[in-house]
């Protein structure tokens, strides 16, 4: 059996989580969901995902900090991080890229576009 690409979704909105889970599972990815920053970092180290979908506004530790932490650690630095936000502020986008994020997705996003983007990083 072919090993599925593992995607870690960091998102605290229950409904978005449901939608994303269906969307990604349906597209043939193995999905793990966490709802706060601390869990996100832990899971990234333990589970070693192939890609991380990271919401910025999450509890305990925000997306920027999670991104910074993971990109600074050698063992997780190569994992593509796609940051997600409802905010389309230029300074936020710039900050995300400065911290090493690979892409910045503005919510709401078309599922097909999201899948296209994910595919391009795998």
């Amino acid at each position, binding site marked *: 059996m072919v090993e599925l690409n593992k995607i870690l979704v960091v998102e605290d*909105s229950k*409904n*978005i989580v*449901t*939608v*994303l889970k*269906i*969307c990604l599972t*349906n*597209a043939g990815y193995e999905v793990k969901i966490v709802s706060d920053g601390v869990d996100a970092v832990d899971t990234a180290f333990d589970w070693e995902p192939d890609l991380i979908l990271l919401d910025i506004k999450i509890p305990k530790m925000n997306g920027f900090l999670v991104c910074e932490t993971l990109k600074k650690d050698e063992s997780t630095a190569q994992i593509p991080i796609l940051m997600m936000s*409802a*905010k389309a502020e230029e300074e936020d986008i710039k900050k995300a890229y400065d911290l090493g994020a690979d892409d910045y997705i503005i*919510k*709401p*996003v*078309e*599922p*097909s576009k*999201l899948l296209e983007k994910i595919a391009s990083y795998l």
Partner: protein
Amino acid sequence: MIKNLSLKTKILLGYIVIILITIGVALWSINNFMTLNEAIHDIMVENYRSVIAAENMVESLERQDSAELIFIFGQKERALNIFRENQMQFMKYLSRAEDNITISGEEKIINNINKDYQVYLDKFWNLRQLSNQDNLQKIQDYYLQESMLQFQTVKNEARKLLMINQEHMKKSQQKANNNASQAIYSTIVFSVLAVILAIVLGIYISNLIIRPTKRLTEIVKEVADGDLEQIIEIDTKDEIGELAAEFNSMTQRLREYEEMNVSKLIAEKNKSEGIVKSISSPLLVTDDDNKILLINPRAEKLFKLEEEDVLGNHFLETVKEERIFNLITETLNSGSEQSGKDSRVIKFEQKNEELYFRVSTTLVKDKSGDTKLVVTLLDDITHLKEVDEMKSEFVSMVSHEFRTPLTSMNMGISMLLEGNIGEVNDNQQELLEVAKEDCERLNNLVDDLLDLSKIESGEINLEFDNIQVEKIFEASIKPFVDQAKNKGVELVADNIDDLAVHADLNKITWVITNLIGNALRYTNSGDQIKLLAEKKGHKVHISVTDTGEGIPKEYQHKIFDKFVRVGGDKDKDTGSGLGLAISKEMIEAHGGRIWVESEVGEGTTFTFTLKLPK
């Protein structure tokens, strides 16, 4: 005493005195003439008659003597005739002299003559008696010893009478001469005195009239110059005194009237000042030299000043607020009222709190238009600003909160529509499409709301640059090329030679994109949408013109308000109703202006202005 007389009486009195003097001079002259006349009368009448009488008496006496001699020599008859004739003559003149006794001693002489002449006549009688005896020698002797001697005596007495009268005549003449010269001198002296007295009196009466008149004139002049404190001190009871008293009562009433007016004015001034001071917003009044004329307590507090220190001083020396000063000078120069614009909102930082004031400057001209005042009112809008910030924060928060559910809804619907989750039938497909469209619309609304709240709260940062208009047009048209082609609408940009503006490319592109999007919504196949740019003065006018349906007049003035849509087109409109409001804010943030010209059935033109490159 004389003060209490009327002017008429005073003048009359003056004339009466002068008339009395004239009468006095006349009487004195008459008196002199009479004295003179008396002297002449003395000479002419009294003495002259006596002299004539004396002379005739001597003559007739001598004739009588001759008649005596003739008698002696025999011609008795002839001699007696001569003698009698002259005797009568003598008696006639003697009685004349007797009738004219005027001088002392004259009577005695005449008595002597009378007595001696009687003796002389007796002696002649004796001589006649002797002649009858015919003794010539005896007669001769008698004549020589008696008659002739008696004749001599009488003659001497007559001569004496002549002498005394001649003497008296001389004296009288001397007296008349003296009297005449005395009369000349005394008349001269008297006349001179009268003239001097008349002059003095004339001057005195003139002064009596003129002095108070002059004083009256001087004071009337001073009163006319505005000094109402003047009182005329003329206490005479005449017409001038009455006039002065009337004048004093007139000035008194004027003074009362003025005092009344002044107190009215002061009351009005206090009222106005009270009103101004009770205004709870800071208020300043400056004149056309920018000197402070009035400052209310709230302004004193705001600028940390004391009224006494600032009044009459230059605005910049005391208040030191250059931003407000610029607004004041602008108003003073342009003459137009400046208020309400957001560019006139000024921030003050005091005691760690931020205060916002909107500055209104109003030019006040007096009727003649000479004096100009600028009333500067600072409207405290801090609380409005706070409310505004709260509103922006609220909108921002709500918008973000909308995003999360919208995201899940949108993604879920999209996945269903894509058919990845499972087949959907036609009815399901249609329903999902409706849901998806409204999701997008909500999303756009949230986007626009966020944009608007950002601009309104001033969070938006404009990145100014000098940009070619051509570049803006290119970027604006690009997203609509396909849509326009599909709809059959011609979308063209005018040919602009090298025209550039000073603006934020993204924001202006957003505005034009919004305008094109609107135009596309109201145009049909065969219509045209045209972009134009033109330099006018220091500005560039950019316009988006379409040949579409046009906007009814009643909507044109409120089309830039939030959530306003042109009626009847609601179904067609999928916009948020905020696009033009945002466009307006953006253009105004650029220092420009946007307006619409439209004719129903003919089309619409939106025009906005931008600055030329710096």
